[in-house]
């Protein structure tokens, strides 16, 4: 193996980092509960959900080089699916969550099938345009609640676990996000993940050596959309309802900021970016009304210090090793 990681290997985390993250996330709500800081358990759920959404985006943006400015659409499809199913009171989790994922993945397959015929700036614009269509649909359709969105009376139901309770819901989020992270890890380490990174590196060559580039990109985009839909479904449960705000292009933009901040193409990039973004937002907004200004300045500073994202700082400085 080469001594320095190449783009094909830098997107793979070590097993130890995965164990460390899992343990830390599992004991976090217990620590907060003991410390009497129950508010932070709900915040932890929100961070985990956005980490999942950002990691889903990282699969296409970071690994695959497809800059989607439309991932809010998949958050929205997932969220609205759960909210619609819960209109009769409550819905069973085993039905609502998979349906949300399937609906979002189907949406991503349709949007991807059209968008992936374009590249670069056109791809950015066309994904944005599709997401805006979903936003206006949600605003204007009476069945989707229009501007007010769809409130939920209760979270989805899971036998044996009380999801109405903050700690119970946190572990529900952790279990689903954990499954999603395992899936993403296996993807990144597979032949498929390797082909995806290589497409980002040099798409023309990948076609010339015989890869069905379009189909590979569409598969990644569909999977990413499905996982973003799962995040949207969890968000709807967390906030007991959805509003069209979930579908605004701000949401898509924030996810991109999280990925770039954490480290695009690094496995923990989405999680790191989401955690830092949310903690900064949370801590600054308690002090000043103009928190967006300070948040912007801080993000600018971080990006200047670590242009490839925070996860890139962990990489040891490359040794001079030239032919």
């Amino acid at each position, binding site marked *: *193996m*080469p001594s*320095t990681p*190449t*783009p*094909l290997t830098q997107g*793979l985390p070590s097993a130890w980092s995965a164990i460390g993250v899992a343990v830390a996330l599992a004991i976090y709500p217990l620590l907060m509960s003991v410390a009497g800081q129950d508010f932070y358990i709900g915040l932890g759920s929100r961070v985990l959900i956005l980490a999942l959404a950002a990691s889903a985006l990282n699969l296409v943006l970071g690994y695959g080089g497809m800059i989607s400015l439309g991932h809010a659409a998949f958050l929205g499809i997932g969220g609205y699916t759960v909210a619609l199913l819960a209109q009769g009171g409550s819905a069973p989790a085993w039905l609502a969550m998979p349906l949300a994922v399937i609906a979002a993945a189907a949406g991503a397959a349709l949007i991807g099938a059209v968008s992936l015929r374009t590249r670069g700036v056109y791809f950015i614009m066309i994904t944005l345009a599709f997401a805006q269509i979903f936003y206006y649909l949600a605003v204007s359709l009476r069945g989707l609640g229009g501007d007010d969105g769809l409130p939920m009376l209760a979270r989805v139901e899971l036998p044996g676990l009380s999801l109405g309770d903050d700690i119970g819901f946190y572990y529900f989020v952790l279990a689903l996000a954990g499954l999603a992270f395992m899936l993403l890890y*296996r*993807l990144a*380490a*597979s*032949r*498929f*993940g*390797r*082909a995806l990174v*290589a497409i980002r*590196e*040099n798409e*023309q*060559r*990948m*076609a*010339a*050596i*015989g*890869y*069905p*580039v379009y*189909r*590979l990109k569409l*598969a990644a985009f569909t999977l990413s959309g499905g996982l973003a839909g799962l995040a949207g479904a969890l968000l709807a449960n967390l906030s007991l309802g959805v509003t069209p705000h979930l579908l605004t292009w701000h949401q898509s933009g924030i996810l991109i900021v999280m990925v770039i901040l954490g480290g695009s193409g690094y496995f923990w990039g989405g999680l790191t970016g989401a955690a830092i973004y949310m903690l900064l937002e949370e801590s600054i907004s308690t002090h000043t009304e103009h928190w967006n200004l300070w948040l912007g300045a801080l993000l600018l500073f971080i990006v200047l210090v670590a242009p490839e994202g925070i996860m890139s700082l962990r990489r040891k400085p490359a040794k001079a*090793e*030239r*032919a």
Partner: protein
Amino acid sequence: MNPALLQAQGLVKRFGGLLATDHCNLEVARGEIHALIGPNGAGKTTLLAQLSGELAPDSGRILFDGKDITRLPIHKRVAAGVARSFQITKLFERLSVRENLALAVQARSGHSFDLLGAVADEAALDQGAAEIAARVGLGDVFEQVVATLSHGRQRQLELGMALACGPRLLLLDEPMAGTDPEESRQMGKLILSLRGHCTFILVEHDMDAVFRLADRVSVLVAGSVIASGTVDEIRSDPQVIAAYLGDDHDAGAAA
């Protein structure tokens, strides 16, 4: 059996008002090194792109081993046995030589939709990569990142990438481009060492190399083949001399 491995029949490609390929016919026999020469702007690269599948012809058809491949996408042509190299090196510059070649070997072995199997321990891919690296003379820089290699070395890898696809027909777009005389000689030796293993279409500006390597030569002028024959026939063809070889100095200076 049909002796022709590749036949292009009446290919036409227009870019707006420009007729880049004008009812072009080309026949390449099994096992030969077939050079494609012609002045700048004659449409050599455009023709090559239609054979490889990057461009779709407006009319005409392409037969490979007797089968019509005119409408096949690139990846299916590669699977059928048609691979190409590029005039301007197009490698995975941030990856090592091993990773570059292993990607090409992986494409051939399929399973790129295998979403969950770990790839890190796939010794077979690395084994295949090592064989190709040795064949194109890159065994000593196997673990090096491509961007750190000299231009001549990158040209060798460019050929290796096409070779790793396991082609029966290899389309080489100016493999000597930008190499010094020594590197160019090495590349020539490399191509000759592969003669018989596979059929070549060689687009090249270096006439010495063409006359040294080619079994047969086709001359492309203004989008169509005006002559096809052995090196000696082409050298003495008055039409060719008038159209192309006559102003050898201009062609050489422009190359």
